[in-house]
């Protein structure tokens, strides 16, 4: 904690770092503290009866980790898989999840007051997973609340009964 405090003191306050990534033509960003690592896309093992955006599972150094294609989830662009396809491995609530994106662009630093509320209606993107919008060098960046997205019921990554099921 003292490290964070020191960091805050040096950089002067309530700004946070975000990792920005690209899905089709849109720029997104997520809290960099949730990012475990970034790696290339590799062959997944398909899981039966899972939604299409859950591509399957991979072996991440001994851990069986699910891979989600955000392009399919957000319904943007084409879900093609090349050697340049990028997977961002996230560490959320002690679970590891990989998300497939078209590319990773930059680490950006935003002050809290630079983050603007999205329009109240007319946007299909579910506001529960939207932290806000920000303008970075004339480019609109969509800040995703990745934790609530990944743990949400509609993603089906976390068994709803996993809390009380111990059989």
């Amino acid at each position, binding site marked *: 904690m003292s490290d964070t405090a020191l960091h805050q003191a040096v950089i002067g306050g309530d700004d946070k770092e975000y990792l920005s990534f690209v899905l089709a033509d849109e720029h997104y960003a997520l809290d960099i503290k949730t990012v475990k690592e970034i790696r290339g896309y590799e062959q997944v*093992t398909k899981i039966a*009866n899972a939604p299409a955006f859950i591509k399957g*599972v991979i072996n991440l150094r001994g851990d069986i980790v699910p891979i989600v294609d955000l392009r399919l989830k957000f319904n943007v662009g084409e879900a093609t898989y090349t050697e340049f396809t990028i997977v961002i491995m996230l560490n959320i609530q002690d679970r590891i999840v990989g998300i497939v994106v078209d590319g990773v662009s930059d680490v950006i630093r935003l002050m809290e007051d630079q983050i603007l509320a999205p329009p109240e209606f007319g946007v299909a993107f579910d506001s529960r997973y939207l932290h806000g919008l920000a303008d970075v060098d004339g480019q609109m960046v969509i800040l995703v609340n990745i934790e609530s997205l990944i743990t949400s019921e509609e993603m*089906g990554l976390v068994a709803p009964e*996993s809390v009380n099921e111990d059989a």
Partner: protein
Amino acid sequence: MSIDIEQFHGVFFDESDEHLDDMEQLLISLDVDSPDSEELNSIFRAAHSIKGGSGIFGFNALMNLTHVMENLLDKARNQELSVTTNIVNLLLETLDVLKATLAAYRDQVDVPEQAIAVSITKLERALTETQDTDTHIEASSHSDAFGFFDDEPDTTLDISQQSATSDNELSTPSDDGFGFFDDIPNEQVASAEDDGFGFFDEPDVPAITTVASDESFGFFDTADMPKPSLKANDSVLKESPTSPVPTNTIQSSTAPDAAANKSTSPPPSISKSPARPAKKSGGRDSASIRVDTGKIDAMVNLVGELVITQSMLSLIGQEVDGQVGERLQVAIDELQRNTREIQESVMSVRMLPLTATFNRFPRLVRDLAGKLDKKVDLVLQGAHTEIDKSLIEKLVDPLTHLVRNSIDHGIELPEKRRAAGKPEMGTVILGAEQKGGSIIISIIDDGGGLNRARILDKAHANGLAVSDDMPDSEVWQLIFQAGFSTAEAVTDVSGRGVGMDVVRRNIEAIGGRIEIESSLGEGSGFFIHLPLTLAIVDGMCVTVGNQIFVIPLLNIVESFQPTASQLKTLGNDTVLYIRDQYWPLVPLHDYMDVENANRKPTEAIVVLLESSKKRFGVLVDALVGQQQVVIKSLEDHYRKVAGIAGATIMGDGKVALIIDADSIATTYTSSQLEDMLA
């Protein structure tokens, strides 16, 4: 003296558990007619170790009870008390109270004071009964050294121990080690009559007692002890030479208890084995160490990783040509051998013999048979069979239940057995053996067997879907239904019908299954099939489309390529017809939603699976080979998936899913299949 003594509590509890188990086994195997003195010594030492430990940790209730017990055992091993069945029973009862007390201390709840008091009274009575037959030469020197621990007030334990010992060494060098090694009799021919008393009572004995003619008191008053129980102690001392001490004094405090017990023990002959080696049960500990299971689990995981890495290396090694390739191959072979050995030895760390589990049953059978007026001989077979520790813990309850069932429902009353032309003594065999990758634990009785008609009646009454021409094996499985009991009367032993479904659930939870064989009038057998370990499974790798699945070998009955005549259609579904029976057939590509799979069953392979619920076939493209795989949880980072027991990592680093036959049997739904599986 500000050591955090609580850190040793866990060790004490574990050790005491072991001692109690040892005592129980020894007591049960004890030949009442000619008791083996070494066995009696072992029982005594176990009781003594518990007493010593409980004294150190201030578990007074435990200490008081073990102390009285120990007195009795001491007399038994010194042949001053003949061991009778009653005494053995009494000691066994005391063991139960000790177990409850130990558990109470462990769980930090109130100790069963009343039960302890009752036990102490009973033991006292047994002691005094024998006392009456003895001559009362209380005044001669006392070899009863184990009093040492008893009389210390727990708060000042360390000081008193040290001071007493050092005093002892200084003043009476001939008495070396006297204080600590209780089972060495005091060979010193004491000049003072009450030498033993003076020494042991010292922490509590007030300085004024030095006015007594007893010079030995003087040695020890230097230790500045609290003197809380002057009166009680005094009175006990006065009383002791002549009469057994009333039990109310004994329960009132620790110190008089000790003195009183000593007073009631008879004088040992001085010639008796003075140089007996101090064989402490603690000596055994040097052969084993206690390790946190978490550490072992971490090691097992790491070895799993190593196995995977090693098979990756092997794959890569095959691609390297030339001289380097050859040298690499030699090194990889070496690595493979070492990896396998490391894996085996790490797994063996987790493996424990079933001995400890099995050894609790003679007692249970003895008690139960007595309660039910039945004659039962329990035969243990293959108790040395080793099994994963995590499985052992979960086996105890189901096994207990099955053994109780065998005695309560299986074995008939002696008259009935005689009428049926069977020996009066029923036999229950509790056996374990390793067969390939699985352990089979069997509970076989030569009792009445399961009553098919009554089970079917009961099933009808419970509204279960049954038919009268079901095969036996399916009828027997009915008894695992919840609320199913054919016992005519509910006894406190069994018959409530809550047990067998729990038994099955517990066994399935540890990856096993249970089978029943029974024949009316001849007996029945319950066979529990268990995997050797939970972390690694022997599996058959199969391909479906471009995906690999692992089917646990435990579930596989056989695999073959079906002929067209073996495949029948029922509605839109294919069923399998072999050996005059129709089997459900689950196309794995359909269930697992795999593309590019072979859709012509006659070109595919059927793997016949057996789960605890049903037998059925699964259709796969091809068999790849048999392999040991490390089970990885899907739920760590994802969620439970129907039909999948977990995942594993193959040699090429890819993930393969492990099939869960039970889950497939219950979740595969196809309109017609549903009827068949129902």
